[in-house]
């Protein structure tokens, strides 16, 4: 039985469309997208209001979740990394997490068949 993994990619919201299209082109159309807020080591960015600067310490980000067989993980990481890349601070991170079980609600299929 192939093991399954979940990829959680936190990316810049403006990159979502590029990443989504690239994933579809590579044969991975299924995904879940969530608007999230967060920050990395640089602790937010500086903005300006009425001549005074202030720090926005939780930035809007987009989280993409994809569940797939373990042997496809590296390929999908490459797709996401190449399309979400700008080279600037705040490009985001990808987390890979093992998945125990997958169930398709409609048919009751399990694991590999349910993906």
């Amino acid at each position: 039985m192939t093991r399954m993994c979940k990829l959680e990619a936190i990316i810049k919201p403006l990159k979502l469309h590029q990443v989504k299209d690239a994933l579809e082109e590579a044969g991975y159309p299924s995904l879940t997208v969530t608007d999230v807020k967060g920050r990395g080591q640089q602790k937010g960015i500086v903005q300006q209001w009425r001549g005074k600067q202030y720090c926005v310490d939780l930035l809007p980000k987009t989280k993409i979740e994809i569940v797939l067989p373990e042997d496809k993980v590296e390929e999908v990481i490459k797709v996401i990394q190449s399309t979400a890349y700008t080279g600037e601070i705040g490009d985001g991170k990808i987390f890979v997490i093992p998945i125990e079980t997958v169930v398709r609600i409609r048919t009751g299929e399990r694991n590999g068949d349910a993906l």
Partner: protein
Amino acid sequence: MPIEEKEAKNGMLKNVQKIGKLLIVICMMFISLSSPALATTVEENAQAIEGLQTTLTFLWLLIASGLVFFMHAGFSLVETGLTRSKNTANILMKNFMTVVIGILVYWAVGWGIMYGADAAGLIGTNQFFLAGADNATWNSWFFQMVFAATGATIVSGAMAERTNFKAYLVYCILMVAVIYPIYGHWVWSGADMALLSGAESPIVKAIGVAHHDFAGSGVVHSIGGYSALAGVLLVGARIGKFKDGKAIPIPGHNLTIAFLGTLILALGWLGFNGGSTLNANDPYMNLVVVNTFLAGAVGAVTTMAITWMKTGKPDPSLTANGLLGGLVAVTAPCGSISNWGAIAIGIVAGIIIYAGVMFNENNLKLDDPVGAIAVHGYCGTWGLISVGLFSIGIGNGILADASYAAAVPGLFYGGGISLLLIQLVAVVTTMAWGFGLSFIIFKILDAVIGLRVSEEEEIMGLDISEHGIRAYPEYLMREE
């Protein structure tokens, strides 16, 4: 004679007959028009022209009133745009009720106190509920009414996001019934004794020249601005505005709305200043309009340049304030100065906006979310002072035929110090009256009703706590 020729001759004959008839009719018309029974005399012509001019003035003042009325939409949008979304419904209600209350209270009380029969140069005493009004009075009332509620609206912006709605409504009534019209009486009533502008007033007699405030840098804006100062002082800063004595920015939720509101206000100034000629045939109406927009534009450019130099980025909401600052300042002098005078006044107003907003926040620790005190208070004061500096004087240069302008030249035009002096008297009076009386009223309101909402209500947002609905309710989930 061939048939065709005969027909042609007949046709010619008919034409000749037609021309003959036409000549007779024309002759008859000449005779009838030149006969004494139907002649129009010079006096009748003059009367007809006068009637037409009166009608033009009525129409112009109605159009101008409409533009000033629309400024309340501008105030609403600027205030909502520069504040947080959780207080939007409350701010819309405050501004909306200000106009509504303004109409009713200025009809019942305000007009009578401002323009009723004078008592000792201090207050009007009749025409309450517009008793005895005629067509001209209704026309004037409508134009003056749309100005009256503006003072309260200015205060609303400065005290936004933490003021008790009920206390604000009571304050609004008192502003339109008492604070605004009494000071207005001193400047605009036209009474001989009128405290700051009447020929028989002891102050005017002592200084030798009447105070001039064309469209209300003092009457409307300074009074509103210094009343706002009293309110902001007493209601205190919003939670989170100051941390360890340092001002923390609280960004507004919609700059699109704030900028639309600013442009609506600028459009309204066409009626505010243009209409204040009070005469559609005023020979300087277009000078007034051009000066108004020159000062506003250069005010915006100046403030933008300062913020750009100070922070490295041109600041949108302060730049919008800069436009308003220029417009407020030129409101008093716009009919008395040259185009270059307007430019100079606008530049100083732009500087005052930046310096005033920073001074209020950093030094006085005042929380004025929309910059109302700097825009209306400080720039209103500058507008009054600038009359004493830049006035050309009636009868001089481009103001050869002026009737409604500052009477004498200002300091920069060789008129000496007297005009500046009476303008300074008015400046002190606006501060004392606007700040002093509003301070007392807010103190009483605080004791009787409570000026400020509770901490929980403020954090929750005044939309929910005061009105039970958010302006953008779809952002909240509802459980079925």
